[in-house]
């Protein structure tokens, strides 16, 4: 592999189970993914578990990726699906066993005041609204990319984002 990161070449090598390429892909996207998941679920430990499971799924299924250039969106899509599956199963478990909500547990991570302030603000949103605003404002995806990741139409992304911003502004008054 060349010293300069070539995404297409890296993905092709990942498809052949090349460990160096898999490592390069991990290095390239792990922090962005962790940041997204950390703000999404609000907990370091859960975000780490989701990062781990996402990359396991990515490396196991990368052979089925058709559009190599859409790798970032594909990785985020896997992570997002894992989070919502987890949420569903945690909600079912809470309903069945009267467990406490994991989202309510205080975060143990050592992040700055601004990070904690934003996390508290985002935690007041519905998970799907939180996901949408994080994908745009924190992960830096375009609206079109968000539409592809979430499977929501571009116009619906725009209008929902407008509504989420309005909600956040009202909370943040």
């Amino acid at each position, binding site marked *: 592999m060349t010293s300069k990161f070539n995404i297409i070449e890296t993905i092709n090598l990942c498809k052949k189970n090349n460990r160096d390429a898999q490592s390069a892909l991990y290095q390239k996207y792990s922090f962005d993914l962790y940041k997204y998941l950390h703000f999404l679920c609000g907990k370091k430990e859960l975000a780490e578990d989701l990062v781990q499971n996402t990359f396991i799924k990515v490396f196991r299924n990368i052979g089925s990726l058709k559009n190599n250039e859409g790798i970032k969106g594909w990785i985020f899509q896997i992570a997002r699906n894992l989070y919502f599956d987890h949420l569903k199963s945690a909600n079912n478990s809470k309903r069945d066993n009267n467990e406490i909500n994991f989202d309510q547990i205080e975060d143990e991570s050592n992040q700055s005041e601004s990070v904690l302030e934003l996390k508290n603000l985002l935690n007041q949103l519905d998970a799907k609204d939180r996901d949408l605003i994080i994908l745009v404002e*924190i992960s830096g995806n375009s609206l079109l990319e968000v539409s592809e990741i979430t499977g929501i139409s571009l116009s619906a992304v725009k209008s929902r984002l407008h509504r989420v911003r309005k909600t956040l502004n009202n909370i943040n008054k």
Partner: protein
Amino acid sequence: MTNETKLDQLFKTATSEFKNDLNPFMETRIFAEIDNQKNFLDIIFKSSFSRFIQGGVLASLIIFSVLSLQTPKKQFQGIVGQVYSINLDLKKVRKQNIAWLKIDLPNGVSLHSKNNNETKNLRTLTIPLQSLKFLNEMPIVFKSINKGGKAIQLTFLDTKKRTINTKRIQLNFTSSNELTF
């Protein structure tokens, strides 16, 4: 400062200040997990059809020389009415945090047990693997009563019965005089 500007500023600051406190061993953990899963699945296929059991007694051993046990996608050949087993390596299963195994059988294929005659009528069986902690392997013993292509579906579940992995084992049963080596 308007609320809108305040919000934009908060996003900008929090994003730039976010520390990468991701576990430094995460990458190692991921690759270890992938390697474990790979080995675990290999074992299932390498063990397929390794034993030939009749009435709970190890009666004989058939070597399927036509089968490439290294290529899991290849279909396994079996004889109608004969009893076969797939051995599950429970030591490797435990490393995967697999708590349950769900076995779905196709029509015409039934489980075979010398002690429990009721299992032969089951189409689906979910086994708590953690209750087998004193065993190192678990044979799934079965036979087919008719010819044709069949698939046994194994679903591996965690303690909350969420799917961790699935494996479909393709089999082709023929009558004994049709089997070619």
